[in-house]
């Protein structure tokens, strides 16, 4: 699938860990302002693809172009949320965001308070993040990822270990962000949560993209037949 307004372009992307190839020649383009969901079994290469897009995994071969730049040069346009929280457990949510704001040259508390409120948390909460519930931690992790108002969001398992209510809240937040023009990539095993919200389902198997569909059920049956 190609799109004239593609924001990310991958060309023959290969990522090897020793003799194991996690990505095997992924070539794809992704449209701007869309909600992409990456699906596949464990070991299909979903997380590796996301980490490569974030600039955390250097491709063994092939190229990644994000807004015409290398991933690390496009880091101000990328927001990355990993499976772990990427937050300091001993500090409060506000203290965490204050620190990460400095890394992006964002001064003052206003933006930190704004993003914490946008994920339906209280910026005045003094409790350290280590004492948050899993749902709160995931939302604070999302707040960290969107702190610098990136154009592209890369989210790895944002609903893992989260109760249904919190997961639906996160889906609602992501929908709002997509409607505001952000390009979103979500790696998840809970695709059912994103039916009716996502624009595209990307199916991965053995380090390759095997299908891309707008309909979750169509893609699932295609992969199932292989």
């Amino acid at each position: 699938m190609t799109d004239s307004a593609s924001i990310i372009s991958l060309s023959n992307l290969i990522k090897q860990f020793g003799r194991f190839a996690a990505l095997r020649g992924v070539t794809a383009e992704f449209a701007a302002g869309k909600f992409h969901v990456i699906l596949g079994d464990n070991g299909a290469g979903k997380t590796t693809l996301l980490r490569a897009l974030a600039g955390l995994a250097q491709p063994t071969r092939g190229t990644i172009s994000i807004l015409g730049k290398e991933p690390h040069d496009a880091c101000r346009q990328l927001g990355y949320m990993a499976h772990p929280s990427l937050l300091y457990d001993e500090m409060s949510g506000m203290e965490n965001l204050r620190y990460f704001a400095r890394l992006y040259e964002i001064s003052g508390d206003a933006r930190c308070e704004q993003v914490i409120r946008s994920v339906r948390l209280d910026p005045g909460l003094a409790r350290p993040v280590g004492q948050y519930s899993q749902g709160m931690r995931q939302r604070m992790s999302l707040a960290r990822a969107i702190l610098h108002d990136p154009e592209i969001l890369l989210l790895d398992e944002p609903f893992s270990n989260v109760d249904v209510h919190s997961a639906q809240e996160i889906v609602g937040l992501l929908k709002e962000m997509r409607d505001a023009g952000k390009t979103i990539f979500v790696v998840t095993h809970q695709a059912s949560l994103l039916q009716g919200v996502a624009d595209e389902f990307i199916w991965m198997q053995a380090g390759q993209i095997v299908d891309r569909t707008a309909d979750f059920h169509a893609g699932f049956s295609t992969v199932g037949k292989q």
Partner: protein
Amino acid sequence: MSLLRSITAATLAKDIRLEWRSRDAINSMLFFSLLVVVIFSFAFDPNAEESREIAGGLIWVAFLFAAVVALNQTWARELRNQVLDAYRVSPAPATALFVAKALGNFLLVSLLEALMAPLFMIFYNLRPLGPAWQLIPVAILGTWALVVNGTFFAAMSLRTRSREIMLPLLLFPISIPAIQSMVEATRVVLSGDGSARFWIVLLLTYDVVFTTACLALFETILQAE
């Protein structure tokens, strides 16, 4: 430059706050070096002159071992919840992270030295016969030599399976010139056996060379998988 300074200051402040709350490193370092002082004082029973000869070695070996405790903690904190990845995806320069970590370790080890040095003096009945002020540059330059390489090698061994063993294996051999300078300078000052100027210049040279090398190579280490 102001960005580098600002991020270094923010990272240093964050590390001090985390250490203040957890006291992971300082408690273990203090306990460890206190044990060394007490055990050595029981193991050896030197007279005043012998004390001046061996104290430099005892002091710096104790501080070196204690520093390894702090150095191992430095990056362990960044591995919990993979927080280091949040830094790696940001536009913040790698150098700022390295300088902040090295400065944090320098403050911790210096605090330890300030607390433990008087105890050493009491336990070993030490009184410097040479120019005591020379111990100040020796302590500053020697501590920096330990922490700058220690911070670098701790980052390098971060992704190895047995990183707590790996750090001393990498750090100790490369620290031999610095340790020798620190020990000799301390011995010279305590025994009044000439000037420690040569050893101080050697330490300064060592610091300049290794700080430059660590700064130049740290980004590669940080981005390595």
